[in-house]
């Protein structure tokens, strides 16, 4: 435990971070190691290039979008706090944790998970997935296998299906509604090693 504590002490604000994200000390240490491994030059923060170095990510069709999600607008770097907080979106929902009233919504709540996914689509951050934005994602995910027309028809249909207010775009509310029946807690969670 001693080594654990000493590692933890090196991380600033670790208590607050754990409080906010719900990660256990072991998680934090693991992520910290990973953070340091990614941060090859030891600057204490990550640049887009650092993410680009992960070669599996390069194969991911929407990898760059996910990298983009780590960087808040206008910022070129990610510090450890943000890094952990973003990963915390994917922590499984813990059911037995007592729900405190007035406590802020945990990062890994259903709607936060959804919002994370939503902002991957909504690149211009106008709160709506426009047809073009959807098309871009589809194009990335479907690759060259499908013609542009097919993509468009899929996109059209997707929007029509979800679009409740007929503005030809999917708002977050509509996005949430269209995925109402899906068990987001399970689909948007990964098991962080203990």
């Amino acid at each position, binding site marked *: 435990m001693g080594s654990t504590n000493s590692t933890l002490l090196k991380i600033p604000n670790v208590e607050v971070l754990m409080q906010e994200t719900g990660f256990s000390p072991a998680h934090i240490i693991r992520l910290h190691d990973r953070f340091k491994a990614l941060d090859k030059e030891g600057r204490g923060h990550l640049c887009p290039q650092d993410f680009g170095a992960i070669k599996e990510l390069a194969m991911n069709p929407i990898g760059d979008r996910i990298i983009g999600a780590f960087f808040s607008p206008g910022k070129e770097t990610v510090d450890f706090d943000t890094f952990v907080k973003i990963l915390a979106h994917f922590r499984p929902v813990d059911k037995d944790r007592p729900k405190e009233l007035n406590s802020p919504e945990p990062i890994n709540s259903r709607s936060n998970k959804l919002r994370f996914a939503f902002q991957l689509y909504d690149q211009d951050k106008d709160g709506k997935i426009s047809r073009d934005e959807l098309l871009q994602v589809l194009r990335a995910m479907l690759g060259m296998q499908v013609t542009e027309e097919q993509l468009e028809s899929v996109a059209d*249909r997707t929007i029509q299906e979800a679009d409740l207010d007929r503005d030809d775009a999917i708002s977050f509310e509509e996005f949430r509604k269209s995925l109402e029946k899906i068990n987001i807690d399970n689909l948007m969670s990964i098991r962080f090693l203990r």
Partner: protein
Amino acid sequence: MRGLSLLLFITVAGEATTDLFVTVASLPPELEVSAAPAGTSPVTARHIPGPGEYGHPGIALARSEEEPAVPSTEDGESSHPHGGGGGGYEIVQWEWSYVKTPYIIASWLLVASVAKILFHCSQRFTTAVPESCMLILLGLVLGAVVLIASKKQTYQLDPGLFFLFLLPTIVGDAGYFMPARLFFDNLGAILMYAVVGTLWNAFCTGFCLYGVKMAGGIDEKVNAGLMDFLLFGALISAVDPVAVIAVFEEVHVNETLFIIVFGESLLNDAVTVVLYKVYISFVEAGPGNVYTADYFKGIASFLIVSIGGTLVGLIFAVILAFVTRFTKTVRIIEPLFIFLLVYLAYLTAELFSLSAILSMTFCGIGCNKYVEANISQKSRTTVKYTMKTLASIAETIIFIFLGISAVDKSKWAWDTGLVVSTLIFILVFRAVGVAGQTWFLNWFRLVPLEKIDQVVMSYGGLRGAVAFALVVLLDKEHVKAKDYFVATTIVVVFFTVMFQGLTIKPLVKWLKVPRSTNRKPTINEEIHERAFDHILTAVEDIAGLNGYHHWRDKWEQFDKNYLSKLLLRKSVYHKSELWEAYQKINIRDAISVIDQGGNVLTSARLSLPSMASRTSFPEFTNVTNYLRENGSGVCLDLQVIDTVPGAKIEEELETHHVLAENLYKPRRQYQSHYSRHFMTVGEKERQDREVFQRNMHNRLESFKSTRYKRHKKDRSQKKHKGSDAKEQDTSDKPRRNVSWQDRDPVVVPMAPEEDIHDPSEPDKDEDVGITFVARKAPETPKERPKSVPAALDACQSPVAAPPSPTCGEKNLPWKYGMGSLPPCVSVEANKIIPIDLQQAWNQSISSLESLASPPEPQHPRVSALSRLGGPVRTSANGKSGGGVGAGSGSNIGSPSSGQFKFPTAKEEEEEGALSQQQQELQALMSSLTPPPATQSAGKRRNPCVYLRSLVTVPPSGGEPQSRRPTQL
């Protein structure tokens, strides 16, 4: 029930008949479901490869134990055997021996199928009692009948038959249609329960039974040692796939729970097979001759059996997928390849005494994706239905025979201590095992298994036919207590299938286990779920965890880069899964639309998403289907004959009633035909009305936006349907025609009315109407345009009356003003038009018509005019779908060819479509009054001229017509 027993009597009698001479029969008597004929001496039984095929030589058939009495002389059928012995010139006797085997098989299949029908007669009953219970009960009854009839049990579940024919059909179905993603997502848990859980159950049950025996809980007569009990524990502990499928299918627990129990029941086969074989060899060798090395051999054997079985299955999966790449020219045997290779996977595994179930399951799971992509839609349907049919019938037979087998005095050696302790042990150890394993698994599972899940899993550990077949296979010479084991197994199987099967549903309800929803994913869900997969993979990569998503992604890459390239046709390889999913959704939409409302048109308006599906080819089949279903157009034909001669108002009224009824029939028939659930008439009507109301509401409210959106959709759709576009262009005419055709029938009733209002109507017109032989091309052009408003009028009549009491039936509805117009268009026209494939266009037209509501005075004349064409068309219509298609094909030739120049020209300027659309719309609205006017005038004109006027005069009206077709 009587019929069944009668059938049974016949077969039993037949059995008895053949007994006399079958002893030297050249036919392989083992093929049949029934056991060897009573008269067959043990010698024949030994000839029979029977269970020996399963790799357990030296095991005598259980049924040959009882030395038969002289076959059935007491029965009424005694005359038959008498004749049977008579000689070769008695044809009947000879034929019986010739057809005996297939005959009995067919009879049994019939019994089983009829039994299913009977069970499903009462719906309330079947929801409460699982089918498997009923089948076992039926089997018991039949068994009793057989026993009384022939004084001994002739039939029983023959292990050879079970393992070679019945089980593979069920496992094949299960494997092929296994939800692969779900299965692999939970593979860890499934393997855990299948291997560890089964071993745990087997050992604990075996040892504890031995303990009870030592403690004196089991009678001295049960002559069994530790090895015997371990053997028994091994065969009784495995959860049975057949029982699990049968029971869980009706319970509808959530998928995760189902896949875990179901997967376990399939994958534990390897464990069961190995344990069974190892113990058998131990038992045969004798307890003293078992050395430590043998245990290790057992473990090695387990690895070989399980991994080998899986490999065999996967190899066959690859072969199968590869073969289906090249079946393009021989579509008709595609399903056969699938059945053969999947079955061969089973047999090959059996050949090397590997785990056959494992092999077949993995063959199914492995090949499904590629095969489904390679084979044609029809083959897919064929495979699906054939597999389901076979599996269902095999399941039925298994349960019936389980019941029958139980009624056999010879096998019953009852020991209460053994039975009770076995029951307790399997229940307790199952529960304990599940709890322990789940506790362990939950450390690693993302979604932990809840307490409730564990209860259902322990309670769902059903034993079944596999255990029974295995216990019957035991060799009595080595396993002295076989009879006790058989009896106990039967009790255990019956208890689990009947008691647990019966109570699991209430239990699930009571525990509020999350149920599975039968909902199919929407396109949004499909897309976003895929995105989620990518996101999670990326996050795992970023977080440096080589977790599940990481490996799945790796596999998908491998699959995409190598496997799919090898196993998929080139044409298929380039299609994306998501695109496939999209099309599937579209097709499903179209089908459900037709299923629900029975009309594509209505829901096209109601649910925009389904618009895109219009163009996809399956649509056509749907529509054809619909056409066929709507064969009640025939009725209309009859109506024509009825009404035309008598031109009285009373008759009008009557016609109206009849027509109204008849027109409502299609939908009603349709519904009852497609829905599995019975619906009260009241409900149906309410639904009708609801559909109608929604339809109207939507129509009026969303008219503009709908049009626009649809248009847009159509455009894009059309673009990517590049090749289809041409085809559609050519097929426009018939299609449109169909729509006209369809409207016309409604027109028919108008005929009498015109007599009153417009007596000046030339007689020859009527003649045309009455003879309605004229389905010639030249004539129709005249009729078509006239029928536009006529159709309108007519639509009104049927609709107004039945659903809405406001339109009194005292008055002819079509005499109402425009007020009643819209409803008529919406419901009736819709109902009839769906055949039309360009609903979009039709909708706009019809709704426009309804909105613009043509002037009153026109009605009679128009209808009179329509009469000209009406009967003709109805006649064509009456000739069923084919007639319609044929007749219509030629009908509209001329007008449409004129119109279709528009679209080609417009194809380029699609960008301006929006504005144009609106223009069109407005133009249409305003100019809709003109057309009727022209019509009334044009009525006396040369029809051709009039026709041209219709096409050219209101260009705005013509435009959407022309546009739609091409755009669709």
